[in-house]
């Protein structure tokens, strides 16, 4: 038996707080995403509609512009719940497309390269892995959804004045809550499905397919069975229902708000379950 002396010394210097270590993964996630020029350009392109909205808000309050083109100010659509409801539909759809592009880029390579043991043989938990990856999606999607939405609200407030802002604060909270819930759901779907498909393009197609297929099947169920329950598997309908409630804009949807919230919660639970099943430090090959 060899005699081994304990001659080395452990590191005793300072360490960064454990809670902040998921940011290491987020940082490299951004590097991975913006390494692809297409994603960078698409993200920039997603800000086109908010810019159009900002221009509309400014010009619709500009008397000389309205006079120049003889546009009666009272006939222009108001910046109200309806305005932000349609803003949410457009930006929500773009957020969905961005998720389908970015989600697989973040997660699929880790599975394709068998990198899970690499992460989890360090003081880094599965929850931190998900936090690190989802934070990239949440930040990116926030930058194209509720943050520009709040900027539009701020522009409108600065033009209309204090009274308009205090009277419409519910709009700001609707923009934040409505779009934040949507991007959380999208991020979870993006990560969960990407974790199950090793091929990036396939994972992206699956993310796209979930919503399109849901809408298609939902419509088919409604048509064949003459019910409205099919809408429950159409996540876009679910989101529109919640937004119409939050923005106080009646779209005539027959889905109840409670049903819509339940569908979103169930979707999130299923995604978390899929992530918990898949994000493991080892893989059993049967």
């Amino acid at each position: 038996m060899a005699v081994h002396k304990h001659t080395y010394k452990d590191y005793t210097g300072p360490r960064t707080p454990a809670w902040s270590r998921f940011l290491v993964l987020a940082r490299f996630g951004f590097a991975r995403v913006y390494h692809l020029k297409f994603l960078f350009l698409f993200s920039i392109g997603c800000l086109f509609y908010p810019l159009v909205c900002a221009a509309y808000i400014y010009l619709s309050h500009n008397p000389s512009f309205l006079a120049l083109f003889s546009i009666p100010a009272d006939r222009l659509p108001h910046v109200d719940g309806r305005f932000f409801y349609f803003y949410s539909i457009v930006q929500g759809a773009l957020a969905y497309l961005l998720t389908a592009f970015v989600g697989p880029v973040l997660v699929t390579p880790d599975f394709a390269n068998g990198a899970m043991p690499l992460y989890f043989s360090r003081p880094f938990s599965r929850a931190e892995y998900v936090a690190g990856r989802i934070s990239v999606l949440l930040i990116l999607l926030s930058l194209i959804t509720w943050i520009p939405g709040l900027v539009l609200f701020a522009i409108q407030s600065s033009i209309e004045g204090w009274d308009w802002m205090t009277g419409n604060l519910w709009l700001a909270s609707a923009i934040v809550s409505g779009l934040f819930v949507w991007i959380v759901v999208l991020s979870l779907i993006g990560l969960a499905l990407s974790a199950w498909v090793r091929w990036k393009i396939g994972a992206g197609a699956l993310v796209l397919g979930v919503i399109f297929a849901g809408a298609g099947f939902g419509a088919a169920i409604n048509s064949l069975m003459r019910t409205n329950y099919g809408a429950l598997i159409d996540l876009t309908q679910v989101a529109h229902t919640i937004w119409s409630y939050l923005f106080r804009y009646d779209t005539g949807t027959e889905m109840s708000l409670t049903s819509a919230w339940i569908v979103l919660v169930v979707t999130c639970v299923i995604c978390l379950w899929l992530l918990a099943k898949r994000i493991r430090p080892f893989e059993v090959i049967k």
Partner: protein
Amino acid sequence: MTDSANITLDNVSRFYGEVLGVNRVTLSIPPGITSLVGPNGSGKITLMNLMTGLVRPTYGEIRIRGIAPSEPQKLFHLVGYSTQFDSFPKGLTGFQFIQSFLRFFGYSSATSLELAGRAIAQVGLTEAADRKIAAYSKGMRQRIKLAQAIAHDPQVLVLDEPLNGLDPLIRAETIALFRRWADEGRHVVVSSHVLHEVDLISDRVILLTGGYVVAEGQIHGVRTEIQEHPMEVLIRCDQPGALASRVFEQEHVVSAQILPDGSGLLVQTRDADRFYRQLNHLALDNIQIESVAPADDNVNSVYQYLIGGEEVSK
């Protein structure tokens, strides 16, 4: 050596659904170089995953130097793991890879830069550190994997096939590195299918098959305990015939076979120690003995005797 300084597994079983990973494994592994040897599906990777806290046992208890896997924050500071398979984040250079993964341990940017440089120097990759891993050769990828396992200065190193793909020079340097770590009092647990290398580097071996540990300990001790296979001793001498007739007089000698080239004798004995003691007397009558060496006191023979014709994992 106290159990708090060892890796201990107490009646550990791990099942993946109905698939057996390892079953009823009880081990106490002291610091030093320990090799895991076994055929495909014998449970080596499961055992390594158990030791690194990546897999929790279905039954039984594990302690890594006194720390249970239920304390992952402590455990993972203690353990360095290099998997058999290539797994590198895309687009990073060797240096970025090591440095970024050090940040998970909570090292500051400056400390992680310093540790990454040191680890890369230890595996001799300094010149290639700023190249993308995707452009690395197999041997370089193997070394960068080793660097990520040692960069945080762990007390327990678990290395799956660490010598695969290394050229002879680097292989020798890496083995010397293992020896140095072991001499510093660290655990170095390696799996390898190159049995002569296992012989060369290991302080002890653990032989696995079908999820069970079939033998563990120092090679010589394990070999001595295999009673059903007599020990083989190779004797190089000038009169093998005369020596053969002498050794046959000993009741513990099972067989004596003259080598085809007539340069010596292969003796099978049930008591090797006694045979060595008696050999001086047997060779008194002008028989010139050039060398005496055990012929099957090695991992390869132990493997053949205990695991038989099963193929060594590749």
